[in-house]
């Protein structure tokens, strides 16, 4: 039994007559201590998948099990780092983390909790900003607070929902290093969702492509064979690194071709039969002249457009 197992999960939105199936046949097995990256195009249901893993939404079919237990509802054993940080703007860095720590470890002494919070603020190098409000921090710093808040509640599994996609390239590179460092320190089970192949290869043990929706599903995973050395970034530029990146991109593109979604648009074409000029313009018999006719005001014609 894998540590986190997702079995035949599907999820759709909307009423039955106008339902859009976002995810279908999702199967996923993740071992303890593994770092898995799920990669896919934007808008293919990555965040829906993450919400399912976190328990924020219920799957329509199938089940999610964590350490053998069926998951029901969200809980602090699954720490989630949201794309948009989700910090409470009226609380300082310290207070944001304290809210989580006080809630999850209520039986600790005050001093222990305080030391715990300070430790995690230091882990993400934000000690100097501990009393600042989120609005006074840069995007990268906010995301670090969010990571610290999630790590501080010591979750069994860490869910990173495109944590770096809202950041500029330089900050992203720094935070990638930081996440890599944090992971190597305590080897937590991590699921990272991303749309950047480099980021996936850089951080994960294996990469799983998610096909474009609707009815998105997971493809076979690609193990990252690069050595997890101090500088995996350099390995990205080796032949093996390039091969991995190409493989991920090719698989995603192949999946996109297969789905080739058809968009049905209603085109309204003008429907006027022109005046019959052979009848002569100056005929006195008005009834004999054919005026421009409009057979019907609007006639919808469905045209299938391959995108």
């Amino acid at each position, binding site marked *: 039994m894998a540590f986190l197992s997702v079995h035949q999960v599907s999820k759709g939105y909307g009423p039955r007559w106008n339902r859009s199936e976002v995810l279908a046949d999702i199967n996923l097995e993740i071992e303890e201590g593994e770092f898995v990256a799920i990669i896919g195009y934007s808008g293919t249901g990555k965040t829906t998948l993450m919400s399912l893993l*976190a328990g*924020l939404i219920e799957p329509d079919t199938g089940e999610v099990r964590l350490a053998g237990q069926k998951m029901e*509802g*969200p*809980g*602090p054993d*699954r*720490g*989630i780092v*949201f794309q*948009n940080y*989700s910090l*409470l*703007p*009226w*609380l300082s860095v310290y207070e944001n983390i304290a*809210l*989580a720590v006080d*809630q*999850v470890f209520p039986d600790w002494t005050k001093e222990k909790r305080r030391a715990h919070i300070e430790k995690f603020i230091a882990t993400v190098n934000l000690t100097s900003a501990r009393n600042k*409000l989120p*609005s006074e921090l840069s995007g990268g710093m906010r995301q670090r607070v969010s990571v610290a808040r999630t790590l501080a*509640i010591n979750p069994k599994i860490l869910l990173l929902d495109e944590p770096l996609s809202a950041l500029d390239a330089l900050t992203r590179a720094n935070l990638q290093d930081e996440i890599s460092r944090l992971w190597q320190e305590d080897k937590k089970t991590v699921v990272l969702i991303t749309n950047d192949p480099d980021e996936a290869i850089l951080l994960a043990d294996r990469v799983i492509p998610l096909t474009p929706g609707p009815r998105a599903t997971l493809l076979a995973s690609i193990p990252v064979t690069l050595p997890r050395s101090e500088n995996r970034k350099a390995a990205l530029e080796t032949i093996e690194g390039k091969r991995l990146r190409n493989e991920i991109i090719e698989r995603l593109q192949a999946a996109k071709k297969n789905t080739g979604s058809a968009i049905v648009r209603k085109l309204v074409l003008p429907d006027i039969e022109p005046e019959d000029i052979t009848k002569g313009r100056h005929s006195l018999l008005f009834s004999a002249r054919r005026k421009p006719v409009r057979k019907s005001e609007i006639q919808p014609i469905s045209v299938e457009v391959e995108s």
Partner: protein
Amino acid sequence: MDFIKRFKLDSLLLPLIGIACFLILWQVIAGKTVTTRVADEFGDMMTKNVRTGISPDLPTPATAWKASKSYIVQPFAKRGELDRGILAFTALSLGLVTQGYIIALVIGTPLGFFLGLSKTFTKAADPIIQVLRPVSPLAWFPLGLVLFSSVKLVDAQQKTWFGASDAAALFTIAICAMWPTVMNTAVGVRAIPQDYLNVARVLKLSRTKTLFKVLIPATLPYMFTGFRLSLGIAWLVIVAVEMLTGRPGIGGFLWQEYNAGSYSRIILCILIIGVIGLVLDRAMSFIEARFKSI
């Protein structure tokens, strides 16, 4: 130097020009007193004062000032129950407004929260709220009198210190001033980003903790917009309420002076009501801005 020049022009000179235009317009509408000397049938010269103008009963700025001066220079004087300095009246009115306003907030805020949190409750209560919201204070007051007709609190000397009309006054202020708070709080609760609620769900915060740690702080900016608008309405209502009850206060004084025919002081009352309303609004905006900045 350049800064001082511009500062003077923009924020001092232009308002002064505006005020001057207003006074001129007032003067023109009020017209002037024309004194003519005519010989009567005995041959004596008599002076005859005739007011001419668009509205001959409206006092001119100068007369208004002369008649109101004593109320302004001795703002806290108490010459009688309905003859006091203008700020003494204002203080009485503010006292009543404060009580009614507090009642409005105490009822309105939770009501807004329920509306924002529960779709079922919104659907059930919305028609009633939409109908009651535009009702004028003048219409609520009689209902208040009926509702609280048996209210009579007496002090040691058997003197009523809180009767039906006081209760009705508070009722009217509260029910009229409540709606902006109710509506804004409801909108604020509905506008809480899903992310904040997700944080609460992931951490498994209890209902009480979610309310105090997430919902209320997230709604505060909206709530304060509601509080500010409510205070404005409460201050509007007070005048109507005091006119109906005849209780001492700025509105009661206004009505009494109208009945007494001293129109000059009506203008004084209007100006003071306006100034106080402005001060209240600015004070609330200041507090509101502090919560919005977060």
